[in-house]
């Protein structure tokens, strides 16, 4: 199968190793990978800010870029949910509604693609360390990703998985919310960081780099030794 990648803008620029990890894993599993280099952003910042016209024009660009794709895999639950859930809504009563629905049906969050579409839970990955997993909200509640990343992590040799308590509480990022209401966002981040530290893990792992940007940003400023990694980085570590 040929998997077309959507690498969200901030992963492209800040965390390219996440995309590289995804490519390595998919190739190791024997699949062809494609990256249409005209891709940019899914439009979520404008959508969440209430500017749906501006969001739609960015989304139209995505419709053009991914028209030929068979399946689209993205290592971000949040951008994935934007395309899968909100694109059809955004294009309702417009000529491109059908296209938006087609694109929506092709979108897979990375861990769901591996486990549900490819049926893979173990490909011999090794990673030494204690790891706790943070569920990104849009992946969790928007796309229903819950067990997939955990199953994948449980099959990594040398990795000890420690459950976060509570695992399903938002880290406080929320896109523009983080700068519109920094005090609330940071208070939420604080609780998340304390929960992460309480697990005693060496790494906090997620399937959403945006949450990790927020969590790592706080941990670094607080000079805490724990490191954040995307699920794809952990799985590709030994490849």
């Amino acid at each position, binding site marked *: 199968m040929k998997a077309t990648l959507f690498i969200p803008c901030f992963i492209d620029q800040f965390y390219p190793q996440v995309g590289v990890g995804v490519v390595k894993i998919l190739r190791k599993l024997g699949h062809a990978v494609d990256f249409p280099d005209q891709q*940019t952003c899914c*439009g979520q910042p*404008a959508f969440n800010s209430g*500017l749906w016209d501006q969001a739609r024009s*960015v989304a139209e660009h995505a419709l053009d870029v991914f028209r030929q794709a068979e399946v689209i895999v993205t290592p971000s639950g949040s951008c994935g949910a934007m395309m899968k859930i909100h694109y059809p809504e955004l294009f309702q009563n417009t000529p491109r509604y059908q296209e938006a629905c087609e694109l929506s049906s092709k979108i897979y969050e990375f861990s769901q693609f591996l486990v549900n579409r490819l049926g893979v839970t173990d490909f011999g990955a090794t990673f030494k360390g204690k790891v706790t997993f943070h569920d990104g909200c849009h992946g969790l509640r928007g796309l229903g990703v819950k067990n997939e990343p955990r199953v994948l992590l449980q099959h990594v040799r040398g990795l000890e998985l420690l459950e976060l308590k509570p695992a399903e509480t938002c880290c406080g990022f929320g896109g523009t919310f*983080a700068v519109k209401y920094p*005090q609330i966002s940071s*208070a939420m981040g604080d*609780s998340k960081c304390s929960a992460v530290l309480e697990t005693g893990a060496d790494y906090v792992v997620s399937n959403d780099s945006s949450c990790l940007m927020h969590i790592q940003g706080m941990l670094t400023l607080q000079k805490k030794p724990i490191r954040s990694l995307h699920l794809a980085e952990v799985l590709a570590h030994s490849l």
Partner: protein
Amino acid sequence: MTTAARQFKGEATRYTGDLTHRHWIQKALSGYEVKRDENKGRFQDWESARQAAAQIKYEVINHLDQYLAQFVKNIEARGAVVFWASDAQEARDYIVEVARKNQVRSIVKSKSMTTEEIHLNPALQSAGFEVVETDLGEFIVQLRDEAPYHLVFPAMHLTRDQISEIFQQKLGAAPVKDPEQLTMIARGVMRQKFCQADMGISGVNFGVADTGMISITENEGNARLSTSLPRVHVAVMGLEKIMRSMDDLALFLPMLATAGAGQLISGYNTLYAGPRAADECDGPQQFHIVLLDNGRTRLLADAEQRDALHCIRCGACLNVCPIFRNVGGHSYGTTYQGPIGSVITPHLRGLLEWKHLSFASSLCGACTQACPVKIDLHHHLLQNRRNATQAHPSWLERLMFGAFSIVMRRAALYRLAMFMGKLFQPLHPLVKGTAVDPVKAWTRTRETPPFAKTSFRSWWRDQQKGA
């Protein structure tokens, strides 16, 4: 920024900075979560129960005119007087008038958010009536001259010490710590008030259309006393609170208790059907129902967000909301706090004045997942944002996102913008944290990630070339 938005921002800053308060609320709600999950497990299937509840509400709300007419006809036949109030003023005026006509002196009230919504207490007090709240939590916040902190738990923000303190100050009580003793102090005061009161005011949890009754849920028994001892009973009911039949209650009564308070069923669930009948020896002589619109029909007209009228005010969405848990109930400045408040207040009190609440959300969706009647809460926050931005666009945001959409439509411009970002990032430490730092809202509490030396697309291009 509107006054309400400024106030919210200020209060949110104050409360999020108050670690003791944050911990207290987290602690208060952690017990609830355990009990809620335990009792959810007693439903054959919680998700199917939610689906069934949502369908019932959908049916009722989409035929509200018919069910309301049926409800009114049946309850009037039982001797109730029904008053349709189109806004808060009409409702207040009617209730004050009923009190005057009946030469009422003192009034007892059971817990009702709808009467909070119409600011009934100040209106009655300024008309010269004594009004005493009889729900323990409401009684306490009334003594403190505060608004309820939470739809369901009005005094959850207070410690026992704080409660004892206000009892000492306002009631001359002795200092006690034991919750039972605290309750006894309140009960001592209330019992007298119950006996003296000429009028009782309550809310309504559900109005049953086919039997013409109202259902009130409580845990303390105070609502039964407030509604049966005084001569006159006035029940204030939002016009969306209709159920079709008693069968619907069989689902909704346990659901309300479990979702909202983590109980299997609330302590008292009572049906009231009109005033004292000729062959009855107790109950009020007059029974008034005030059916309140106050913006609800505006919400009904909005096909996208009509399901917000499904709300049974259980409070589950507040309990799970990380925003509520950090800013607390008083920051909102609204009658209804938390996610449901952020969704409906713009409809009830004006979009532009209250839109900020829809932006004060990380859109995590915990509320939507918790809501027993499946209101698409976080999605409605997005729709409120869109509507507010359309009605009153901020030129700065329009400019920013206009530029954003131009750049993101062209990969070459995107690359250029990222190149500029990378070029200027090394200069960021010079302004970091100062007034001219463009991202200071972020950097105060969080480090910014560095641009990678090689972006993913560059890596891709290089390895494609190499291949």
